[in-house]
């Protein structure tokens, strides 16, 4: 399949996923159980992506020792619980991560 077709298809599907709940075509008044399951989707979809970024190296091997990514990942969870703010979490953790990963430059 051509790359352009794939891009357009993914674009249409992304738009449809966003549009369907707003279209008014489907009523989403489900049971409490249904709503709770739907609410879990961002958690169960984004967590594997986070795990992949923190626990696998560039060659897709599971890392065997604690690295700066893991330390900063847990730090981000703590900062997020404390500040409850997306930007603060990103900026503070990224700053610490950049300092840790470039500390040898500071030491000369």
């Amino acid at each position, binding site marked *: 399949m051509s*790359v*352009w077709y*794939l*891009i357009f*298809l*993914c*674009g249409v*599907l*992304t*738009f449809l*996923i*966003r*549009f*369907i*709940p*707003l*279209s*008014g075509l489907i009523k989403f008044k489900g049971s*409490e*159980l249904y709503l*709770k*399951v*739907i*609410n*879990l*989707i*961002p*958690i*169960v*979809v*984004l*967590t*594997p*992506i*986070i*795990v*992949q*970024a923190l*626990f696998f190296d560039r060659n897709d091997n*599971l890392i065997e020792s604690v690295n700066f*990514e893991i330390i*900063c*990942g847990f730090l*981000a*969870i703590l900062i*997020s*619980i404390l500040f409850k*703010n*997306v*930007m603060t*979490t*990103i*900026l503070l*953790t*990224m700053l610490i*991560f*950049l300092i840790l*990963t*470039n500390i040898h*430059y500071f030491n000369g």
Partner: protein
Amino acid sequence: METKLEHFKSGVIQELPLQIGVFPFGLIYGILAIESGLSLLQAFLMSSIIFAGASQIVFAQFYLVVSPFSLITSIISINLRHLLYGISINEYLKELSLKWRIILSYLLTDEAYAISIKYFATKKNKKFMHYHLLGSGLTLFLTWQISTLFGIFFGRLIPENINLAFIIPLSFIAIITPMIKQKYEIIACLASGILAILFYKLNFELWIIFSALLSLLISLPFIQKDNSQ
């Protein structure tokens, strides 16, 4: 009562601080897209055709190595959270015309949703409120296009020791951590994380879907228990 312009300006102003995090994300996408072999035009136009950060990065990383079906299912699974955004924001937008709902659906990203849903919940008068989402959505759209261009043309100038890609998992941590409050949510999160490690090597294009669906199944009894309490 606020005018259309006042709602729009509020959306733009409240969305602006988030662009500090969005810009490097777009930059990374631009760099990855070019490195993966996409043409300049494909890399740039994908930012308006798909207009979804994580999906575009997954596309750029995997379009050459997995089947179109696997790529499409991965992108659908990544975007499924937008269904949830749509369901909750629909409460405030259901009186709008089809034209407006199409425009706002296109602009409904993580960051625009987070800013506007908070604003909608605090406003009693709903007239013209949708201009806030238009403002926040357009701000993000513009930043995304500009940062993509920067990534495409100037990405190579960024020193290699600055690992900006780490912003992506950090953003996801910052988004989902406040969502996890109940016991069944902790269980679902832990289960999907552990399952991701187990499935990652088996079939990398399906690890997100397998982990997500199985962890939903695992957490079902705990949700039912929570309901019965």
